[in-house]
């Protein structure tokens, strides 16, 4: 009972708004990317003057597009999985499977996020920048961490929800 409430509360008050916000920023990055390339092509074709560094800006924007949308995909269950076996499972056994798989997912995402944090330190310490415009690399490495943390939160709520169903009478 308590666990069910906890997971619903987490989802409603913390996770859903964060996922929505992250996804919105990611979508804006995607739209910005589209306009950047269109303007670059236009300037190059009409004025023979491409935008210097458009290439690397797209690369950085891709980091926003991907890592700010990953968690929302987990929340809305659009990440791809194969349900050929689990479709036959019902009730508590199914909940148990969901509990285990979410736990495994959380494990790898904690490691991935931790690795991301270490990498922020590394790219800062080594002063890595982009080639043409010398834009620092590390803020975009932080985006990986933010996306990872939110993904972990979604998984944690999934775990609590599955656990509450496993323990249900």
């Amino acid at each position: 009972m308590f666990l069910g409430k906890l997971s619903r509360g987490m989802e409603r008050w913390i996770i859903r708004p964060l996922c929505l916000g992250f996804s919105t920023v990611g979508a804006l990055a995607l739209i910005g990317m589209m306009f950047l390339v269109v303007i670059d092509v236009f300037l190059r074709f009409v004025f023979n003057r491409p935008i210097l560094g458009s290439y690397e800006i797209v690369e950085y924007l891709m980091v926003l597009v991907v890592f700010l949308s990953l968690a929302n995909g987990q929340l809305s269950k659009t990440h791809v999985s194969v349900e050929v076996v689990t479709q036959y499972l019902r009730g508590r056994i199914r909940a148990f499977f969901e509990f285990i798989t979410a736990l495994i997912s959380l494990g790898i995402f904690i490691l991935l996020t931790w690795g991301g944090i270490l990498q922020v330190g590394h790219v800062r310490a080594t002063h890595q920048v982009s080639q043409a415009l010398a834009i620092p690399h590390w803020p975009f490495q932080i985006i990986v961490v933010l996306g990872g943390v939110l993904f972990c939160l979604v998984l944690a709520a999934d775990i609590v929800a599955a656990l509450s169903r496993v323990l249900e009478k």
Partner: protein
Amino acid sequence: MTPLEVGIIGIIALLLLIFSGISVGVAMAVVGFLGFAYISGWEPAMGVLKTVPYTTAASFVMSVIPLFVLMGQLAFHSGISNDLFKTANKWLGHLPGGMAMASIAASAGFAAVCGSSPATTATVGAISLPEMTKLKYNRGFAAAAVAAGGTLGILIPPSNGFILYGVIAEQSIGKLFLAGIIPGVILAALYMVTIYLVAVRNPALAPQGPVTPWGEKLVSLKNSWAMIVLFGGIMGGILSGVFTANEAAAIGAFGALLFFLLRRKLNKENVVACLTETMNTSAMIFLVLIGANIFGYFLTVTTLPQALASFLASLPVSRYVIFIGIMTIYLFLGCIMDSLAMVVITTPIFFPVVMNLGFDPIWYGVMMVVAMEMGQITPPVGINLFVITGVAKDVPMHVIFRYIAPFVVTLIVFMFIMIAFPQTALYLPHLVR
């Protein structure tokens, strides 16, 4: 345990995890990470986790995926894809599987502007699946047809597959592109025949519409102008050198946005639906790609692909038997790993063998792309299958697995046709020599 044994255990573990219902990308990341840690140690495995996610995402070439997905969504929500498929339905709807055939034609057309199979699948899926659903097509069958059609993305130029092979095997990318054209058309036709046969055997999968009179058919053409302008603009822009194939995605999304605005579809509901779909589909593709890369680096250190290849190269049998053996290995490897990674790892081993057997390097490039296409639609790890599941939300993956089988068989038949008639691939490249 030797790395080879770890590799085999890793593959079994991957299959078990995937069938336990965990996301496929996560399953590949978990097995890849643990396997890498077992062989090389924790620190290198953490190194993989530190670098691979960022580098997979931060790629200009990969930016075509979310942008083409966005284009597909904008085209769908502005109604221009609906118009195109209404026209297609008037022309082909009365045939068994006619609309699925139309989606193959759309894939072939789109493949001519896009070098990536997942992007082709996502775009054509976004515009054609809803239309087929309206016509009461079986969703699994429709999704499988689009996933198969998506493989044309790397056979019909431009093609990331040919670029990759051309760089690894040092072959002319221009010639490889030419080599893909005729086989691409043949494969599209074969897919259509497959759809026809399946639909004739099981009419419930693809309900036939009424025959439309010729006058109405011709009149309907004018409704499809928007999509023709969009496709024509992208094609023309690439062919005339206004923009590159990679930039085409942004131009296409922008063009679709203009139609979206011109048709007054700009409202909150449409924008939210469009962007939510785009972001979720992109996230889904990239989680799989990240997992596939991690798993791929693990397979590299297991030396499993190399071992398989050297075993085959050592067999004392006819060159065609060895060649078919190589293709069988690709069929197997393609089931469990990302097809681009598969070709990167194995080409250095197979290429010299195949050249020694006296096969043509350009023709072999086409065969490599066919092998990649097979990998993209064979379960359990097939990027096109994942993408189409993302687009066709309520269709479970295993249902698509069931309907993809005839298309995999078609690819195998196509492979034998290519072996029997290599000139289909080589005719155009030889013209320019």
